[in-house]
């Protein structure tokens, strides 16, 4: 890696850590969420600098969407009163200090204990293609299964969470049209 890459890597790495620290020191739910977003965007940058441009940019893309939606739910559901007042992200301080200390120690130990493989062969020109092949080639069955499991989880969770079923919408004989919905939809189902 050239000098620019190294400098970028360090700057982004430090910024990601700073964002992580801010998550636990700021006192506003909105600021905490966007500090975490900043941290994750820096992680995306790190991945891009490590010559995985697709994964790097996709991390940025996904994390922005996810954290913005997360902000909505964090402010709506977390804390009392409702994430609008000054708050702290620290709870169960002693217990969480022990847990996080242990996890950190395990991860650092992992860095030194894992026998990292040496590079074999030449560096591929387009890593996007390699990522796609390794995900969708040999692991196609895993990906398809995972996709269905994720979709089933989402549909199942939504069905369990909603208190209205089709009999509420379409009446006892399921023949009521249009459906009796609290808010009209766009296509008049």
């Amino acid at each position, binding site marked *: 890696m050239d000098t620019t890459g190294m400098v970028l890597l360090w700057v982004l790495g430090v910024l990601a850590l700073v964002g992580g620290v801010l998550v636990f020191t700021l006192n506003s739910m909105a600021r905490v969420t966007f500090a975490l977003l900043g941290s994750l965007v820096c992680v995306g940058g790190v991945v891009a600098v490590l010559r995985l441009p*697709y994964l790097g*940019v996709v991390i*940025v*893309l996904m994390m*922005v*969407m996810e954290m*913005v939606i997360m902000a909505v739910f964090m402010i709506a559901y977390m804390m009392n009163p409702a994430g609008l007042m000054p708050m702290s992200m620290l709870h169960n301080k002693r217990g969480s200090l022990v847990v996080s200390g242990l996890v950190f120690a395990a991860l650092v130990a992992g860095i030194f204990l894992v026998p990292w493989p040496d590079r074999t062969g030449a560096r591929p020109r387009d890593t996007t293609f390699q990522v796609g092949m390794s995900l969708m080639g040999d692991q196609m069955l895993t990906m398809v299964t995972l996709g269905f499991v994720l979709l089933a989880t989402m549909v199942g969770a939504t069905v369990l969470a909603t208190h209205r079923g089709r009999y509420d919408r379409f009446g006892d004989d399921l023949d009521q049209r249009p459906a009796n919905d609290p808010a*009209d939809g*766009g296509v008049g189902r």
Partner: protein
Amino acid sequence: MAETGTWWALLVAPAMLLGFAAAALAADAALDARNAGRPITVSTVVRPFLAVPRAVLAQPRRLPASDRLLWRAGVITVPVAAVLSTLVIPFGDHVVADLSVGVVWFNAMEVLTWAGLWLAGWGPNAAFSLVGGYRFLAQGLAYELPLMFALISAATGAQSLRVTDIAGAQHGLWYAVWMPFAFVVYLAGVLAFSFLGPFAYPAGRDVAEGVLGETSGVDRLLLEAGRWLWLAAGAAMAVPLFLGGGAGPGLPPWAWSLVKTLLVLAALVWTLRRLPMVRADRYVELAWVVLLPLSVLQTLVPALTDLSL
């Protein structure tokens, strides 16, 4: 094929984007005048730009307990993301940065608008702004997935995420011709992420202009500029994605890019005045029940074509 990376391109690309955005705004003002039965003169077209010095000189509005850091960050993010998105858009055979993942870059920059507008709504500590910010997220959840599949359709057709490859892969037959649905969904997405016309819901009059309502001075200028810059960026991106880029008979590539971008921009400006504003709760059902399945089917067309070749 595409020339990249001369330093002056970094200056020219934002300047051109600004020029396209200004042209769109001027065309909008001209159509306004025509609809009102006023004569279209130079002053009608120039009038909206008088808001620029007015905004720069205006005294900023201060609000109690606003989160100025987040507000400022959000307001700046919208136009800056629009400018950054143009890095990967080829103009003729010039492009600032010919990234191998250009389509994803454009998409990521567009999604930054979500964060920017939510922050712009949250920052002022005012109910209507906040409603506007949340409205954009609801709208985002509706338009984003069909838009992503429209982008994926073009990328699948060219088997590349590099925007210049996509433009180059359309020799003879534009993607707009054999992927018309993806093209239409993409254009609807452009109107949606520039929250103009039918998608002006986050800044609707019913919530006192929502995200824009509490902004004043330069903040207001940046958000309004962000809207038109995004419209221009979306129109410019439509050319390499669906209209063959700079390819065309007779004229040089830059001229074809210019003509095509202006035509797309004109179509968008015309459309945004013709359609009524749609509420996000209505559009989200249309998007998920009708547009999304059709977008997936549209993506299947280039995918099957790739397999059969």
